[in-house]
């Protein structure tokens, strides 16, 4: 069990996170928030790169900072902007990281080909990483995070730079990896976590807003999400009064998905709220918030 206990983090006088309280057991956790909300800061504390200003992070009751390498041995981490050595091939790069992770050369020699196969890079094992596409680099990143068979897998914006096909492949891969371990997946892309996360954590105004299942989180918008069709010239006026979640053209008319909490009209079609609806609702601009 990984516990974040009343953790706050300030950068100078600027608070980034306040009184964060979280518990993680085996399963996939989607850390969902817009850019700049403090996801990466939280993740860097979980990976011991940043120290909390207040509070503590515990693994099985022990603070992770006092556990030192015993804790770091348990984690696999894919950072958001993950650097690599352009002149190395994936095998050389993973061999180096295996050494840093304290994996014996023999074990690394067995594990690396397996992981490269898992991320479909077995044919590029001797190709310099400088020639790799963004997706290939990201897959090497996933492989390195898995090198030590971590009990806690932390992925920060792992689908950034991946094309839709690679994104689907990544999600499938993650589902396979998620057994018997804590997987924390930070993203601002709702679809990345919607299908695989057991729980969603949303951070807002430096604090944890939700930590719950997708179903429970979506329930709060039950009866508030609607769809309506209208002419193009009506859209502008409509947007002034309602929070538009999505808009698409359909047979020369606009189909709008929106949120309304009062003055419900019978011609509006009520729909089931999705995680994306909650996300857009929670992280709307202040100006729009007033409309709702």
């Amino acid at each position: 069990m990984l516990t974040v206990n009343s953790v706050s983090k300030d950068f100078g006088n600027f608070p980034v996170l306040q009184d964060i309280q979280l518990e993680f057991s085996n399963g996939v956790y989607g850390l969902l928030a817009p850019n700049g909300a403090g996801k990466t800061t939280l993740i860097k504390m979980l990976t011991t790169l940043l120290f909390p200003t207040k509070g503590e992070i515990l693994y099985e009751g022990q603070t992770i900072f006092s556990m030192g390498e015993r804790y770091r041995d348990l984690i696999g981490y894919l950072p958001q902007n993950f650097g690599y050595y352009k002149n190395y091939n994936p095998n050389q790069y993973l061999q180096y990281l295996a050494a840093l992770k304290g994996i014996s050369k023999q074990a690394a020699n067995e594990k690396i080909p397996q992981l490269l196969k898992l991320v479909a890079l077995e044919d590029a094992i001797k190709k310099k990483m400088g020639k790799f596409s963004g997706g290939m680099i990201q897959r090497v990143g996933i492989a390195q995070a898995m090198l030590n068979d971590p009990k806690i897998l932390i992925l920060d914006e792992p689908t950034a730079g991946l094309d839709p096909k690679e994104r689907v492949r990544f999600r499938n891969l993650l589902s396979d990896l998620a057994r018997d371990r804590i997987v924390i997946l930070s993203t601002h892309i709702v679809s990345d976590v919607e299908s695989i996360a057991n729980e969603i954590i949303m951070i807002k105004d430096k604090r944890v807003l939700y930590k719950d299942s997708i179903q429970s989180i979506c329930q709060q918008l039950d009866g508030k999400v609607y769809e309506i069709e209208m002419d193009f010239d009506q859209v502008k006026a409509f947007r002034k009064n309602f929070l538009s979640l999505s808009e698409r053209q359909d047979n020369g008319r606009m189909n709008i998905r929106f949120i309304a909490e009062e003055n419900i009209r019978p011609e509006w079609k009520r729909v089931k709220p999705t995680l994306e609806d909650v996300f857009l609702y929670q992280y709307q601009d202040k100006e729009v918030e007033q409309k709702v």
Partner: protein
Amino acid sequence: MRVLLYEIRKAFHSPIILGLLGVFIAFNFFLIYENSFIKDDLRKVNQFADKYGTEINDEMLDKMKQDYEAQMKKVNEKTNEVLSKTYESMDEFYSDQSFYPADHFNEKELLLFNEIALLEYYYFTSLHLEESFQNIDPIAIAELEIKQYGISGQAAELIRSQYGKFTERYQEVLENKEYKHLFPSQRVFETHLLLFKKMFKAILIESLILTVLVTAYIINFEFDKGTYLIAYSSKRGRGLWGDKLRAALIINVLLFTFILVLGLIAYFSVFSYKEFWHVPISSFFNAGKEWFMSWWNLSFIEYLTSCILLAYVLTILFTMMTAILARYVRNSYLVFFIFLCLFGVIFANQGIIPRSNIAFLLGYFTPVNLVLNSFVWFMHRAVTFTPYFEVITVGVWFVILLLGILFCARSFRKCDLK
């Protein structure tokens, strides 16, 4: 160990480091080539040492005298035949402006004249050696140095308080006859300056440049490449900083060894010291403008070894200095630039201290001063006034830098890596 090897490998994949290494080695070879015109004469001096021994005594002087007189006889036979003149000495021969030797004598004869002139120089200098050395007054030299450097007040008094040690060592050299040995003459060949000023200073500065580049490159590698988040969150964690420092130390020592060994092999292949390895460095023949004896009774090989050891310690000190900078400045090239500025500041700092203040003299106790004055290491000098100048300098800086390194390692363990 594997991590250490990986870190070491990184430096040897850097084209800048490898390129500079090649340029520096080529430059050292050029320095040797540029001065190689003295090599034949040096070989002759070795032959003298082989024939007469290196210790200057009556027996040696007699042998030299006999040979010199016999050779002069040959010279005079030749000059009488060609010029209808005879000479008392080669000095007189070369001072004769009435002819140009190359117009009247063949190459073989000119070489012979040159050899006899060299023998003449060594014979007469050796003959008057005792008198010449006894004429040296270490106190007068020190006073002259004090005047030249404009030192006054407390600083001058501090130097003067060491005069007892100056004369004590001078008497020792006089009594144990360290000065009475044949050696490549400084006045003729300037080999001490060539080896310990030109060559050693070049090697030290080259090593310094590589040391700073390598250390900054290795320590900041993960920050430069953006891999620090993965590297420092791995099991090895912040301990990697220590691995990097160790790797930088090993590489710097290896690179220094490589440059030094190649440079010295080339130097001693061209300039023969075959007969002089065990000659005291305080030989009167080795005296120069800024030194005339070492603080310790050291043979040439012992002196060279001491200088090499000191150079290794300096390499370690500069590695530590750069590591401290690289702890706070996370860009290799910026570290290099700041280091150069720091080097300049340490050097220039002394200029702003009043010369009557003891701090002015303490300003000499820096690794920067050591690098720039390698030719007077372990040598008797007024401004560095103590026999332990080099030991104190590197000792004090080592302790300070070691404390700095320990502080950096500790603070790195506790710092946020954003």
